[in-house]
C-alpha cells in the first residue's frame, strides 16, 4: 500500500502503455483476471477498463479474442479456429488378411452367419475384424437366420459394391473364373502367404502361363 501512495506521485502511464500492460497480464495469467486485480498490478492511476475495451476492439476478428468470464477477462482462441488444436494424420493401410478373407466370404456367401464364416475360413473370426468391416461400411447386418439361436447374418453393402466397382454381388467372379485366372491354383509357399500383394500378383502372372501342377513356388 505504501508503494501505491508513493507511485501516485507519478502520473498514470499513457493509455497505449496501459493497453500493453493489460495485454501482457492477460497473456501471462493462468486464470481470468479481474479489473480489480489488474488495477492492483498496474501503476497507480491506471484505468484497466478503458485499456481493456481498447484491446478487446483491437483483437476483435483476430485469431484470439478477449473474452469476459464472470467478472474477469481472459484471452482465448477464436471459436472458429478450434480445429487448429487438432492435428490430424491420415494413413492408408492395406486391409488385414483376416479382414479380406472375411469380407470375401461375406461377398460370396451372403447372407452368412459368423459361425459359417468361421467354418469356411477354418479359424475363429475376431470381433474386431467384423467390427472393422462394419465400420468401413463394407458389410452390414442382414436378416436373422431362422435357425436355433436366430443368429444374425452379414451381407455386403452398396458401399462395398461401389468401392469394388461391382454392380451387384452376383458380378463377383465365380470359382470357374477364379480358376481360369489362375487364382485357385495359386499355391503360395508357406511363409510367403502374408507377403504384400504385388508379390502375389507376380506369382499369379507366372501361373497363367505354366502348368500349375508342376509349379510349386520355391
Amino acid at each position, binding site marked *: 500500500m505504501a508503494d501505491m501512495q508513493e507511485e501516485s506521485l507519478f502520473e498514470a502511464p499513457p493509455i497505449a502503455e496501459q493497453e500493453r500492460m493489460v495485454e501482457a497480464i492477460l497473456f501471462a495469467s493462468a486464470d481470468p483476471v479481474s479489473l480489480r486485480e489488474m488495477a492492483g498490478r498496474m501503476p497507480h492511476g491506471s484505468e484497466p477498463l478503458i485499456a481493456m475495451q481498447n484491446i478487446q476492439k483491437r483483437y476483435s476478428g483476430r485469431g484470439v479474442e478477449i473474452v469476459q468470464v464472470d467478472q474477469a477477462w481472459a484471452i482465448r482462441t477464436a471459436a472458429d479456429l478450434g480445429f487448429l488444436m487438432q492435428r490430424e494424420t491420415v494413413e492408408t493401410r492395406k486391409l488385414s488378411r483376416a479382414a479380406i478373407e472375411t469380407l470375401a466370404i461375406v461377398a460370396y456367401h451372403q447372407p452368412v452367419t459368423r459361425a459359417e464364416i468361421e467354418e469356411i475360413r477354418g479359424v475363429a473370426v475376431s470381433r474386431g475384424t467384423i467390427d472393422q468391416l462394419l465400420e468401413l461400411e463394407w458389410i452390414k447386418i442382414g436378416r436373422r437366420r431362422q435357425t436355433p439361436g436366430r443368429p444374425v447374418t452379414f451381407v455386403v453393402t452398396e458401399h462395398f459394391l461401389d468401392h469394388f466397382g461391382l454392380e451387384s454381388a452376383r458380378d463377383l467372379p465365380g470359382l470357374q473364373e477364379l480358376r481360369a485366372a489362375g487364382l485357385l491354383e495359386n499355391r503360395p509357399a508357406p511363409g510367403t502367404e502374408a507377403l504384400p*500383394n504385388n508379390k502375389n500378383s507376380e506369382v499369379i502372372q507366372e501361373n497363367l502361363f505354366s502348368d500349375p501342377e508342376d509349379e510349386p513356388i520355391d
Partner: protein
Amino acid sequence: MQEELFETQSIAERVASETLIVDVDGFEGPLDLLLTMSRTQKVDLRKISVLDLAVQYLSFIANAKNLRIELAADYLVMAAWLAFLKSRLLLPPDPSQSEPSGDELAAHLAFQLERLQAMRDSAAILMARDRLGRDRFGRAITEDVMRRKTVNYTANLLDLMQGYARIRTKDDFRPFIMDRESVFTMEQALERMRGLIGYSGHWTDIVSYLPDGWSDDPKKYRSATASTFAAALELAKEGKIEIRQEDIFLPIQIRKRAD
C-alpha cells in the same frame, strides 16, 4: 597445538591467516585463486606479470602450508608447476633445450586466466538478460493439441478374389511341415491312435503308441512323442480315452474309456 601456535601470533596475523583459510575453501581451484590474485595487479589480463603471480601464489601456498591447511592436490600441483615456471622465467633460455620457454608457458597461463575471466563475464551478462519466467513470460493458459489419426483401409477386387481363392484352395495346400521327414503330425498320431485305442482296456504307457521306427532318431522321437501326447489329449477331450500320470515325470498312461 594449533591453539598454541595462534597464541604466539599477533591479532593481525591471525585475522590474515583465517582469511586465507576461508578463501581457500571459497576458491574453485587453483586457476580461480590465480585469477583472484591477478586482480591485485590491476592491469589488463593480457599485460599481467605471470612471474609476480607465480611468486604470489607460491607464497600463498607456503603460508597456507604453515597453517597446516589441508590443500587439495590440485593446488599443490599448480604450486609445483608455478615454481618450475618461475625458474624458467628467471633463468635465461637455454638454446639447446627444445622445451617450451618460460615466456610461452607464461603466455599460456595468461591466456587461461583471460579465458576463464571471459567466461565469467559472459555468464554474468547471460544471467542478467531478460529471462523467461522472470522478465518475460510465456502463455500460462495453453491448449493441448489433440492428435487424431485416421486410418484409411484399402482393398481392391484382386485382394478380395485372392483372399477367397486362398480359402477355397486351402485344402489343397500341403502344409510345409509335411515336407520334413522327421515330423509326425498330430493328425497322423490321431489316426494311428484311433485305430489302436479300441484294443486297449488297460492303462498303457503312452510311449507304446509311438509309431515303429520313430524311437531311435531323437528328432523323430521328440516329434512323435509330442504329437502322440497331443492326440491323446484330443481323444481324452472327445471322451474316447482316459489319461493319467501318477506323479510328475512318471509315465503318462492312457486307456480306453469304459462306456
